[in-house]
């Protein structure tokens, strides 16, 4: 009787492993403690209500917990994806519209003026690196969200 009840509750609990284990362990204790104090399994089951009803009440707090952080995680994912798109967009537009090295102005032919920067590298690469970082974060967060 008791085993049947617990089994049915288990079937109704569509939760993560930990939450499910905790509820089922508590249910075992509910029965054990009541029997220890002289109650019968029937009395306990009558008090608990149907397995479906018990499972519904027990899992509610866990569903609330599960939903709360999820919203934050989706926001985080969308922000990173947006960051990746913006930085890659800036990076590619910077690369595309770049004048060839050693050239200044829209001249039809090469001039002798040397264009140089105090930095030994092109700043536009920073945009590319930032884009890559955001892309990697997006992938990590997406994988984490799906795995939950």
């Amino acid at each position, binding site marked *: 009787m008791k085993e049947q009840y617990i089994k049915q509750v288990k079937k109704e609990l569509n939760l993560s492993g930990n939450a499910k284990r905790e509820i089922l362990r508590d249910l075992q*204790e509910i029965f054990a*403690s009541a029997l220890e*104090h002289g109650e019968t399994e029937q009395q306990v089951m009558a008090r*608990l209500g149907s397995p479906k009803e018990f499972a519904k009440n027990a899992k509610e707090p866990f569903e609330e917990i599960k939903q709360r952080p999820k919203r934050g995680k989706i926001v985080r994912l969308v922000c990173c994806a947006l960051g990746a798109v913006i930085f890659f967009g800036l990076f590619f537009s910077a690369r595309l519209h770049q004048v060839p090295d050693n050239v200044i102005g829209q001249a039809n032919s090469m001039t002798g003026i040397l264009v140089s920067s105090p930095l030994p590298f092109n700043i536009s690469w920073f945009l590319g690196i930032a884009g890559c970082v955001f892309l990697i974060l997006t992938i990590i967060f997406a994988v984490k969200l799906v795995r939950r």
Partner: protein
Amino acid sequence: MDNRYVQQFKKGSLEMILLCLIGRKETYGYEMITELNGSASVLGYAKEGTIYPILYRLQEANLIQCRLAHAAANGGSKKYYSLTDHGKEVLEELIAFWSNYENCVNGFIDSYNKRDGLK
């Protein structure tokens, strides 16, 4: 007298009552239920199905903590609940609020009871 207004009162106060029970001394599920049914009959019959979801929420809010202890008598384990430091603070705040709340509600009740004198 078991209408939905009364249900609302009970629902709101059960968390605090459980915090008081747990704060007094470390306790476990069945003990809380027997205590509620023994001394708080005005609340109605306490059931595991009502108590445990509240305990899960209190635990998630880091107000209570629990430890598992081997229980020879029931052939398994018992979960003993106690208040966290945060739980103690929150309970103190709730108790302070409750007395203000009680005064406030009583004030309205008094003014209602004295309505004839106002005429």
